[in-house]
């Protein structure tokens, strides 16, 4: 069954869409990742214009993180003060990202920029995930292997404008969290992702936040930045497709529930290797599209349409 997407102005197969939403939902339920970094490139592959895929992907991020952030707020595992600082950075980053996104669209280079950012970031995350899961696998076989120190004093602790973050037990400068927020906001606007994959490691390793507040605080920031970015895309380039979003969200929420059940039963470490390989495969596919001689070197763009 084909469905007509009113903003993308093209038809796509409804089951393919539900499959993309559901499949990524299962993965996100299993591994506790947002999945935006898989949904957007998969949408390119099925023929959704990149501008629509990015703006709609970021709308889907709101849906996939809202129930998580509510649960964490109830359990009081959100550092609201840190979350707010990250959020302010995120909003600034989102505005910068949207400006850059619209500039590139005018110059006819948007598809390239989106594809390049995906190759770079999927490559980095995939490689890190693979390394991390291989290390975990080795550790489970050899429990005496040296562990990594979680909290170290580094250059971050010598910057000005220090602020007390009671929930995290930190007294650090607001500059690093603001900058981290800006970076995540830019990625949200250009790539249509939540940015948890950058935010979580930055919070743990760079800011030294305790793990019990990391997930809740990152979800808090991601939800609001994604909501703001959705609004910015809707206001500046009209590329949010509600019809597309509904199918992705429906597939995603059902998939996430199934994924959570599967994740409870299976050994996560081996599966994490598979997820890492999947991320690298998507990265490789986009990279090949950029590297190999295309069958058609010409393309058409219509001003004011996607």
């Amino acid at each position: 069954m084909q469905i007509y997407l009113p903003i993308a102005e093209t038809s796509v197969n409804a089951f393919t869409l539900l499959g993309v939403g559901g499949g990524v939902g299962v993965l996100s339920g299993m591994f506790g990742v947002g999945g935006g970094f898989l949904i957007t490139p998969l949408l390119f592959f099925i023929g959704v214009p990149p501008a629509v895929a990015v703006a709609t992907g970021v709308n889907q991020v709101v849906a996939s993180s809202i129930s998580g952030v509510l649960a964490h707020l109830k359990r009081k595992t959100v550092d609201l003060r840190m979350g707010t600082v990250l959020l302010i950075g995120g909003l600034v980053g989102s505005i910068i990202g949207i400006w850059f996104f619209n500039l590139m669209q005018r110059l006819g280079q948007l598809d390239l920029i989106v594809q390049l950012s995906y190759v770079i970031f999927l490559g980095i995350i995939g490689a890190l995930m693979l390394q991390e899961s291989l290390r975990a696998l080795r550790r489970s076989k050899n429990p005496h292997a040296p562990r990594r120190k979680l909290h170290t004093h580094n250059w971050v602790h010598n910057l000005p404008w220090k602020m007390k973050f009671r929930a995290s037990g930190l007294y650090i400068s607001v500059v690093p969290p603001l900058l981290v927020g800006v970076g995540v906001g830019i990625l949200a606007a250009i790539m249509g992702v939540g940015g948890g994959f950058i935010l979580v490691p930055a919070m743990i390793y760079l800011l030294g936040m305790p793990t019990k507040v990391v997930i809740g605080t990152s979800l808090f920031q991601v939800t609001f930045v994604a909501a703001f970015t959705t609004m910015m895309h809707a206001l500046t380039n009209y590329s949010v497709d509600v019809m597309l979003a509904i199918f992705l969200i429906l597939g995603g929420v059902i998939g996430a529930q199934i994924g959570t059940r599967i994740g409870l039963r299976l050994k996560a470490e081996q599966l994490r290797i598979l997820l890492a390989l999947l991320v690298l495969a998507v990265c490789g596919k986009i990279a090949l599209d950029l590297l190999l001689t295309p069958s058609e070197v010409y393309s058409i763009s219509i001003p004011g349409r996607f």
Partner: protein
Amino acid sequence: MRGVVLFILLGMLSLLPARAEEVIVGLSQNRVSLTVNYEGSEILIFGAVRREAPLPDDSDLDIIVTIEGPPMPAVIWRKARRLGIWVNTESQEVRAAPSFYAVAGTAPLSDILSAEADLTHRISTRLAIFEARGPDPRDAAAFTEALIRIRQGEQLYQELDSTVALQRDTLFNTRVTLPKNIVEGTYTARIFLLRDGEVLNEAETFIDVQKAVLERWLYNMAYDRPALYGLMALALAVFFGWGASALFRFVRS
């Protein structure tokens, strides 16, 4: 059905003023609605030739049918390898290119249409596209050819040689398939009557392609009231995201 059509056509014939040969045309549908499950549609174009004088026997009668979607400006990009990756490097603007163009005839176009008649009436696909004046006209042709090639691949441009059936030099019909990826707007169907490569008579009729009610409403809202549209998108995300997990919690407990 065919009898009724014929009857109506003959009725129409008798109402027209006298001329040597004249074309009368009908369409199977004047409206196409782009609904949620739109997968393309087939339009039947049929008609008759009205004639006062006896049928000339020194030349053959030919019919050409074109259907043209709303013309739009376009930018055609060409990629080149830069630092190892393929990047859009050069572009050529087109002042107006039909978003859809199908041309069908009783025989291949080159056999039945003279170059002058083509220039006057802009019948062939190449002439339906209005190029912008570029700095390099020889290269501009490559860009326009690419536009035609890409859109032919998407079934947006169709050259349907010899698909118009003409019976007893009077009745004709042809079918044109509108693909799933057409844009909305007024589509113009033109029917040309030709002898010896020259256009004797032409007729025009229109097809209204519209998004269906819900799609139309969403599209208008996205462009006319983007703030409201954005808030609606967020409300849906919150509703489904939170609602679904609440529902699953409820089911589990």
